[in-house]
């Protein structure tokens, strides 16, 4: 399997203080590091899952890959070409091969355009001349399982699930190599979540496209991704195959996330590892292991020394001094 995208030590910073503030309070941090040195790769035709709580930097990472937020450090190699440091104009051609499904299904569709125009936009933006535009639109609609009549509708006339399908159709329009799906099932009812996930799987088999699936829902990731990473405070704390991580979570945070996902069964055994407190602020990262303030297994070393990402099993990496053994 060939590597489609390779990310190395990627960092994204946001400025939190204006110049004047920085002068007045020179010791306060001027930046937060939303993505803090992340490395991974995605193979052709593979789904890579990115899991984390809100504020963990997962959406920022997705947006950085597609060039919607500037990268401060590190490299993104996509199809063998370096993307970090490119300006907007130079980035544009790469967005033909890399598209995004946004988090808010209705909000990401212009309320003033009909579905037809929404789906024609990618071709217009990238200057692709179509022989027969209406035919292409119908084809895209049928790919996502919607009848051709939908092209005359406005976004407000669509349900959440239908809007999500239009978002996918738009992402597929230019036959991309990579789709970044940000929370593909957020806001959908359980009875139709499966619909969107099945559709994504079907499209993937047909066109061998790679998917970066960003979500906080572990139950969803389990079904769609081959490999996955758990993100905490902008870093990967565990990376490995989905199967390994679900069977043998090595980082206490992963274990807690898995346990916190309540099973719809009142008699399910409680293997609760309940975390204390909230996620620390990025402005004020804890010393040593950044998870130690919430970790139920914290020891002395964790408070002093920053753990490095290391391999615990082939292809399974974890950022913890004392990985859990099963």
């Amino acid at each position: 399997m060939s590597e489609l995208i390779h990310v190395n030590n990627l960092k994204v910073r946001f400025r939190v203080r204006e110049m004047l503030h920085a002068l007045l309070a020179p010791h306060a941090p001027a930046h937060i590091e939303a993505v803090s040195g992340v490395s991974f790769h995605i193979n052709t035709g593979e789904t890579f899952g990115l899991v984390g709580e809100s504020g963990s930097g997962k959406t920022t990472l997705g947006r950085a890959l597609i060039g919607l937020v500037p990268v401060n450090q590190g490299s993104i190699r996509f199809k063998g070409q370096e993307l970090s440091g490119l300006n907007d104009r130079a980035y544009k051609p790469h967005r033909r091969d890399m598209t995004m499904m946004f988090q808010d299904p209705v909000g990401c569709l212009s309320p003033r355009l009909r579905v037809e125009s929404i789906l024609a936009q990618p071709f217009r933006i990238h200057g692709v001349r179509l022989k027969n535009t209406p035919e292409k639109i119908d084809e895209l609609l049928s790919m996502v399982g919607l009848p051709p009549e939908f092209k005359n509708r406005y976004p407000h006339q669509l349900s959440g699930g239908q809007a999500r399908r239009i978002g996918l159709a738009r992402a597929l329009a230019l036959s991309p190599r990579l789709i970044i799906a940000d929370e593909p099932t957020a806001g959908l009812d359980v009875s139709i979540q499966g619909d969107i996930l099945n559709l994504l799987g079907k499209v993937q088999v047909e066109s061998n496209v790679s998917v970066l699936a960003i979500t906080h829902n572990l139950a969803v990731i389990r079904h769609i991704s081959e490999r996955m990473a758990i993100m905490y405070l902008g870093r990967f704390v565990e990376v490995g195959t989905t199967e390994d991580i679900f069977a043998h979570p090595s980082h206490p945070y992963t274990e807690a996330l898995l346990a916190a996902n309540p099973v719809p069964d009142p008699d399910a055994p409680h293997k609760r590892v309940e975390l204390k407190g909230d996620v620390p602020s990025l402005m004020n990262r804890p010393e040593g292991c950044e998870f130690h303030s919430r970790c139920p297994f914290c020891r002395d070393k964790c408070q002093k020394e920053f753990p490095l990402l290391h391999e615990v099993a082939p292809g399974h990496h974890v950022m913890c001094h004392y990985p859990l053994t099963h």
Partner: protein
Amino acid sequence: MTENVLEIKDISVDFITDSGRLKAVRHASFNVPKGKIVGLVGESGCGKSTLASVLIRLMSDNAVVSGESILFEGQNLMGLPPEEMRALRGNKMTMIFQDPMTALNPVLTIGTQMTDIQHRSHKTRAQKRQIAVEMLQKVGIPDPEDRLNQYPNEFSGGMRQRICIAMALLSKPSLIIADEPTTALDVTLEAQIVHLLKDLQEEMGCSILCVSHHLGMIAELCHDVVVMYAGELIEQGTVRDIFHKAAHPYTQRLLECDPANIQRRSKNLPTIKGDIPNLVNLPRGCIFQDRCHKKIAICSQKTPGPLSLGPGHWASCHLLNQGEDYV
């Protein structure tokens, strides 16, 4: 017989819209027993939040409520004058809202809001503050005395929801209505809030009506469960009845569809095909017929009534009817 804090009989809610009367809730009847947590489950648009807002009378202006009675501690809330309803609201009956960001006033300190909410009590301001401090301690907020002087934006999402819970408990209510209390929170915080609610309920002995679409949370928190679909109650039972012996095809499918319930990795996840029927022009017969995989002839002819399946467990489905009359 256990005592009921809340008894709802045959309540319907219509919304007057431009395209006609939208029948959001139809003939709903259920009870909330004293000291129990009852879950009201359903997908978006099934009317669960509408029903909850009718109980505490916070529905929008175009809603028309009809039906027999809403008995709260023996008092009928239907037709109760607004002043009396207001005296009840926030006192004997309180609410926890979905979004803790918008439920708190951003320009007042937590301390001010928590003393203001006790306006009915005749204690001094210092005493009210002390009660607020104790309640914040109970919901697990560290250094409550200092934090009372802070504004909502200085708290994280999980903390804010804890404050909302503390405020709902301040008046020692007999019923708390919790509308999607964990939807706006992350999974690890959700677990914390569920445990907190459960512990506090046991300690204070109040009843909770918990409205949610999250099956996992309902399974963990509630004693009894009511399932709603497109404005109708379709099944009710204890939490074990619903999760282990679900009788209505909708409940069964809903449980099957939840990705959390599918342990084996699958690229072909089950779904419920179709959409919720139009609530302005209701179809004849069973409300779920169009999406039901077990549909039979009678389903499109006659609306099924509730059939008893055991103590406290009933469902509305023709398939369960083996000759006996509807209860």
